[in-house]
């Protein structure tokens, strides 16, 4: 019951973290002389810039600034309270700054503190009218954008890519919308990986647990009954007693089945458990308390 209640509490606070960092924003495109392109909400042709969120999280850039002057980084503040200023994963938004963009200047995207420059883009002096300068995604995960050296036909509101760049998720959405291919592939790989581990550790386990050695010893050495018979014969030959038989039989048993190694041929030695005077363990000092 307590666990249920605990989880019910957790359930009531199903919280989604908006992992946002302004550093994930870039100025992805800018158009200075916009005479026949897109129009703003008043129907006017004006300079525009495009902001892209290159991360997989949501970023709220309300309160950030756009400027073309390093000495006045707060030239235009992106309005607060506008829900469209929250950019989702790899989304793009067109901004209409209050000033005209002049070719040959550098545009700055500035953080909410009015000091930290998040990103810049240089507007070429020879940028033709109704053409834009843009940054193009160069990698499949869209984290590496580079400025395209040549003026481009504007694509406001669309991700600037080489055309053939597709993220893993988009590729799966396109080619495997129901997910069965990925599921079957993944299950096969998980089973395959653990199956290989199983095989390896079955073999190594058999080796280390002495199964193979036992099998080998059964072929190369005497069985337990044979070991006992040898022990009795040896004892009788030496005129020994029952205790000797037991000791020899135990030694043979250990030698053949428990992997007790003896370096001397034809001799089985039962060593004392007491360490020698030169044993390492005797040289350790007692801990000082």
């Amino acid at each position, binding site marked *: 019951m*307590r*666990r249920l209640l*605990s*989880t019910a*509490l*957790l*359930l*009531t*606070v*199903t*919280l*989604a*973290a*908006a*992992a*946002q*960092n302004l*550093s994930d924003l870039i100025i992805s495109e800018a158009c200075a002389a916009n005479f026949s392109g897109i129009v703003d909400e008043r129907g006017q042709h004006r300079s525009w810039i495009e902001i892209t969120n290159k*991360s*997989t*999280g*949501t970023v709220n850039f309300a309160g950030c600034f756009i400027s073309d002057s390093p000495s006045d980084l707060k030239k235009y503040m992106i309005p607060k309270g506008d829900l469209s200023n929250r950019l*989702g*994963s790899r989304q793009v938004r067109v901004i209409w700054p209050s000033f005209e963009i002049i070719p040959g200047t550098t545009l700055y995207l500035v*953080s*909410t*503190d*009015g000091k*930290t420059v*998040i990103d810049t883009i240089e507007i070429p002096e020879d940028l033709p009218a109704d053409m834009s300068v843009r940054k193009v995604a160069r990698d499949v995960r869209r984290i590496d954008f580079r400025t395209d050296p040549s003026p481009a036909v504007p694509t406001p509101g669309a991700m600037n890519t080489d055309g053939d760049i597709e*993220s*893993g*998720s988009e590729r*799966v959405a396109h080619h495997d*919308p*129901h*997910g069965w291919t*990925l*599921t079957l*592939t*993944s*299950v096969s*790989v*998980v*089973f*395959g*990986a*653990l*199956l*290989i*581990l*199983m*095989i*390896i*550790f*079955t073999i*190594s*386990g058999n080796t*280390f*647990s002495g199964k193979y050695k036992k099998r080998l010893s059964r072929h190369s050495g005497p069985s337990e009954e044979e070991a006992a018979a040898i022990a009795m014969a040896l004892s009788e030959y030496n005129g020994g007693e029952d205790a000797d038989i037991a000791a020899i039989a135990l030694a043979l048993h250990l030698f053949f089945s428990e992997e007790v190694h003896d370096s001397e041929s034809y001799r089985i030695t039962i060593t004392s458990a007491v360490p020698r005077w030169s044993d390492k363990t005797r040289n350790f000092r007692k801990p000082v308390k």
Partner: protein
Amino acid sequence: MSQILDSLQQFWQFTGFANCTWGNIVMILIGVFFITMGIVKEWEPLLLVPIGFGMIVGNIPMFPGLNIGIYEDGSVLNILYQGVKQGWYPPLIFLGIGAMTDFSALISQPRLILIGAAAQMGIFGAYLLALACGFAPNEAGAIGIIGGADGPTAIFLSSKLAPDLMGAIAVSAYSYMALVPVIQRPIMLALTTKKERLIKMPKPREVSRREKIIFPIVGFLMTAFIVPSGLPLLGMLFFGNLLKESGVTKRLANTASSSLIDIVTTLIGLTVGASTQADKFLSGKSLMIFGLGLLSFVIATASGVLFVKIINLFIKNPEKKINPLIGNAGVSAVPDSARVSEVVGRETDPSNHLLMNAMAPNVAGVIGSAVAAGILLGFLG
């Protein structure tokens, strides 16, 4: 006098009182409640106390631009949050888990490893369901990993694939891990007969030190070569285990399994809590994530139990048959799901101890979920 009043009025605009919303208050109250439950009732205190306090921290209303919020670049909280966002903390937690985990049960009974693979069906079942519910593939992958029953893995993958859903996924994963006994027991009883539950399994053999040392090296090489995208998790898990088993790096293993994992757990709890926002409170998407998370646990448990039953069909020697009650332990909520196997097994036969046998699929499940996370990251990242 008027200047003082103006200054005070200006100061008022900076205070939390002036910027407070109802959402902030609700979230702060929930945070306080979490802390209370963690301390007074001791319900998952290692989880609830840091997350609860983090929720309070993250929902303190403030004047924007002070550069102190968790989402403001360069702030202290933002720097700490990078550990979650960039996926630094989960591998460090895996290092500690590796240094704490004894893989002997798995090494001594390799055939039980595959149960850990079967239980990962929960991940992919939830992935399919999430896609059917309209989630994008990357979001569905992040939701599916809840079925891996592994908090750090869930945070790691969701931070990479769907950071917006990370809070809901993390809270969901930890909730259902706490609920493992409640969720798994009825499924285990429903899918097994009394005769099957009475199966006694032999005690695992003792494992030599050499085997324990070889395991993390071979295990890492095999899994990392197959799924390189799982390298951060798998590498740290096996590295931590090597520190433990080598016997010559006890200090490092002790640090990884105590101080380090405690520090990282504190930071991950605090920052995940602080990253939660009132405006996303009880969103429909988050509730769906909780529903899918529950289903993923159900699928994972059922898959593990049914897999054992299928395997038993091919085992002729009755002494070598596997008790299906350890199938649930493939869900890698270590060691809770193995304990459930033990408890349910003893309910049927008090002399039947399944814990040591259940630990094998349990730790195999940890490896399996890390491999699954690597696969999803490779395909969907």
